[in-house]
Each structure stands twice: as C-alpha cells, then as structure tokens.
C-alpha cells in the first residue's frame, strides 16, 4: 500500500460552479478544487466518494455522482437529510465547500468492458451510478447491452429526469418504476418496487456485470431475485452506505464483519458480503 504523507483528514477548498435542483429534496452540485494541481484535474472513478466539510456544521461522506469533468470538476448529488446535507442547500454558486478524497472502491467499469451491464438503482442510489451511465453512454461501443432499472418512491422522487433522453440516445435502455403515484400525478411507467420490473432486463447470467445501489433493504431483495435468476455472487456488485467519520479506515464506524466500508467498499462484489455478518444482504 502506498502511504500518504499529508494530513489525510485535512480538507481543501472547492468552489461550487453550478447547482441544479433535482427534486424537492435533492440537489446536484458541480464543484472544482480552488487550489493546487487538482483545481484543473481531479481524478476519481464512479462509485468513489468524498468527505465534504462545512465548517461549523461538520463533515459527511458523499458519493461522487459524475465522471471527472474535463476542467477538474466533479458532481455531488445530495439529498437533504442530515446536518451537512441540509446546510449545503443554503449555498450558492461561487460559495466554498471543503472536500477531501476520493476514497473507496469504484464500480467495476474496467471489468464490464466488452460485456453486458445491468444497473439497478433505488432512489438516491442512482447518484453513485450516474458516472457509470455517463461512461457507458459516452463510450457505448465499449460495452454490450446497457440496461437501467430505476425505482423511486414517487415520480417526484426520480433523479436526473432531464438527462433520461440523453441517456436513451446514448444507448441505455431505461425501465422506470415508482412505488406509488400520488393522485393527479402523471405516470406512464410501471408501478411497484424495483423487483417487479426485473423480468424486463435482458442481461443474462454469465454475460456481464450487475451494479446495484439503493437502500440496503432494496438491495437485499434485488440480490435475492438476481440469485434466483442464476446470477453468481461474483457478478453482482453493490454499494453499501455506512456512517463514516474519516474515510481512511481509522474511525471504525463503517465496519461490518472484518471489513471497513470506506476502504474495502463502498462498492463490493456480493461474493465478498455473502456469509458475512453485519449487512442485510
């Protein structure tokens, strides 16, 4: 393992370059580091995360929700549910957020090259997969089939709806579902939890890679359905969410079994989780 000499807990200033409201409670921030080499080139892979600081509020682990931008930018799609994420909502373009990272394991995009890709996401779980979708739609010929099954609670909870057409044009097949449709809301797609649309996927076991992200209870049932359809534990990848104070395998908060989710994960093959304790999976 390479060792890092600088203080790993010290965040650096990043400027908010764009803000896009995704839903009533979720926002995408495009940021770039203000100083140093990383101001122009910040490299990371989809699935990894940063620790974001708002001084006086605290620090939180937030997944990166894009590919690296050409000018060193990176996106975070944040649902306002905690101290840091709620405070982020008050910020404007030009404001500073402090960040450190990237941390954790990425989605297995390299392994997926030349093979089929099935993405199954629930709610905010689509955020860490958006970079994968950007990679696939921009380099479509590098992959076989590319299918997304995406479920949310209601139509108003769907993220990135303005990008769906681009994704389709980029060769991604989208299947959408919501748990419920409030009265008066327009909805032309499936109603039901995401497992109810799994039969619409055409990716077959042995043909590629499955990436799953969402609430752990959702992933539990998705994995169960995948296994029932013959997918092997080694071709199913999930991203776990745990409380993290450090991101660098020290604070201990994200442990399950002998694993530190911040470093051994967050993206793990199901074969690494199966039979271990401490997850719902």
């Amino acid at each position: 393992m390479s060792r890092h000499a600088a203080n790993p807990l010290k965040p650096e200033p990043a400027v908010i370059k764009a803000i896009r409201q995704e839903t009533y409670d979720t926002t995408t921030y495009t940021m770039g580091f203000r100083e140093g080499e990383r101001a122009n080139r910040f490299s990371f892979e989809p699935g990894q995360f940063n620790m974001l600081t708002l001084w006086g509020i605290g620090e939180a682990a937030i997944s990166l929700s894009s590919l690296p931008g050409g000018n060193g930018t990176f996106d975070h799609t944040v649902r306002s549910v905690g101290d840091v994420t709620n405070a982020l909502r008050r910020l404007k373009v030009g404001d500073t957020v402090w960040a450190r990272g990237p941390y954790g394991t990425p989605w297995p995009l390299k392994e997926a090259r030349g093979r089929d890709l099935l993405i199954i996401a629930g709610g905010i779980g689509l955020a860490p997969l958006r970079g994968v979708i950007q990679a696939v739609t921009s380099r479509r010929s590098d992959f076989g089939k590319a299918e997304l099954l995406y479920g949310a609670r209601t139509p108003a909870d769907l993220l990135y709806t303005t990008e769906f057409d681009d994704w389709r044009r980029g060769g991604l097949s989208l299947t959408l579902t919501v748990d419920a449709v409030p009265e008066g809301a327009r909805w032309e797609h499936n109603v039901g939890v995401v497992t109810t649309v799994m039969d619409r996927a055409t990716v077959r076991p042995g043909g590629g890679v499955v990436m799953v992200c969402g609430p752990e209870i959702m992933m539990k049932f998705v994995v169960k359905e995948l296994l029932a359809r013959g997918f092997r534990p080694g071709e199913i990848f999930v991203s776990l969410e745990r409380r993290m104070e450090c991101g660098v395998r020290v604070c201990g908060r994200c442990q399950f079994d002998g694993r530190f989710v911040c470093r051994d994960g967050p993206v793990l093959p199901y074969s690494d989780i199966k039979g271990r304790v401490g997850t719902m999976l």
Partner: protein
Amino acid sequence: MDGLGERATALERRVMPEEGLDQLVRALARRGPVYGPVRQDGATVYGEVEGAQDLDLRCTPFTYSPKALLHRPRQVLFRAERAEGFVPREPEEDGRMSIIGVRPCDMSAIAALDQVFSQEYPDPYYQRRRQNALLAAVNCVEMAEHCFCTSMGTGPGLAAGFDLLLTRLEHGWLVEAGTEEGCAVLKEVESRTATDRDLQEKEELIRKAAAGAKKQLQTEGLPGLMRDRFEDPVWKERREECLGCANCTSVCPTCFCYDAYDVVNVKGDKVERTRCWTGCPVVDFARVHGGNFRSDRGERFKQFAYHKLCYWKDQFDRLGCVGCGRCMTWCPAKIDIAETAQSFRRGGEAR
C-alpha cells in the same frame, strides 16, 4: 514462549537500587512530562508523575491504558476561523513525553494501535504522540484476577518494543534499555551492570507470575470458532446482561473508534473540529439516515466481542485482545468475553 520475555532484546542491562526508580523518573522528567500509573479516587489511572513516590506499580489493572496518552480521548483535529476563510490549522504539536509503568499487555496493545494508525493514510495525530513518547515498560511479577496475557502471548514478560524495561527484583530494579535513548536515560541513574544471576531472577519471577494466571482463553483457531458460534444462544444471554454503557470500549487498550464533530463558539466564527472516542456499544454508533445497522444492543455487544476475537484477525493479522482483563473488570454487568469464548471449547454453557 511468547509472553515470558526471557529473551528480551536489550542494548544494555543494569540494576539500580530501590531509590534508583526516583532518579529514573526525574531523568525522564528532564526530557518532558512523565506519565505513569497513579492512584486517584480509588482507582489506578495514568497521570503526570514527578517522582517515584507518585507511582503505583503494583500489578493491578489500570482503569485507563496508555492508549489515552497516544490516541487522545478528545483530540482537536483542526481549528478554523471565519476571519481566516476557515483555512484549517492543525493544533500545535506536543513535545517529548515519557510513559512509565507500561505493562507488557499494554505494550502489545500499543503495537496493535501502531498498525491501526499507520495504514495507507497514517494518522498524524497518533503518529506524532507515538514518536514523541519514550516507553518505559515494566514486567509483571504477579497476575491480577482478570489477567490472561499468558493466553494471548502478551505477558507477563516483555520481549521487545520498549525504550526501557523494568523488572522489580528482590533487591532493586533490573533496567533493560532497548534503544539508544533508553541507554542515555540509564546513564543518568545510579546503577551497576546486571549479572547472570539478576537475569535468572527476572526469568524466575516472570515464570512464577505466569504460573499464577487464573484465567485462560485458548486462542488457537479462535476466529473460526467464533464464526461457528455466531448464533449461539449464549449471545442472547449476553444481550440481556449488557447495559450498552461502552465501559468496555473505553477501557480497552486497543479500541480505536472515534466520532468527529465541530465545536463552534457562540459567535459562530471559530470552529474546532474534534474527535472523541466512541465505541460499538453506543446506540448511535452504526446509525445512518433512515436506520441503524446495529439497533439491537445484543448486536452491538457482539460487535465488540467479535471485533476483538475474530474480525481483528482479518484486518490486522492478529487478535484485537491483549488479555488485560479491563473490559470484564469494569463491566457493570460482569460480562467476560474471554470466558464466553472459552465456553465454546467446553461445548456450551457459560457465564
């Protein structure tokens, strides 16, 4: 055998008279603050000492291990002020310090913490304090009620890792220096060269101490055994007993988990990012938005027991328990993880 410390690697071995201990503490004090076991409110804790009269070097389990001097219970990570654009400043470094009276089990715990805090991203706060610390260990010549260092291979004698290593002989102290700095300190103390007889006396004392061990935990294949017994009914009993107080993780010399938060002044323009010990028995430990991955108290207690006796092996290729016995000594419910694990060897019923 590990833990008997017969072959302690030392650069120099000397014997100082009874009053040499005081000279030693004062020699250390010339280099910076000296911390050692002191009696306070009916318990033995680490405190600053000026001379030998302050020290309590009886073989009793200290409430807090030297962990507290290296991985601080509360550590300011950064200070940031609005007037400075919140550019974070690290707190000033502490200087040289000595820790005297470190027990062999606690030396093993420090070696475990060294691993935890020097991974891919070394933790500068721990590293600095560790590099600044001169360790004057002391061999144990008797066993306390809950000691099981002999099972864990961590005591009662120490083999390596010390700057200075003391052993109380019938007449005076055997002092072994493991580093150049240890040798330098030793030069400032009245002493004579140790003889073979002195070393034989030390070996005999340690062997006698080891023979007095009252507790046993067979560690061979323990992680696998723990996995096999994950659903054992005994864990339900422990669940009912555990109060979730986290005394165990506080006194454990290897527990390293922490919480980090910002402390803000009233005007809201000065921030101290602070980390503070926490432990897996604490209810919020594994809480995330929308749920808690260990909402059950029994699961939280099991995380403690399994981390020490099972998962640590996966993470750091050793066990996370050094056999100091503190968790069971300070548990208000008298839960004994060693006895619980050992009961699996007997095929069942345990307390």
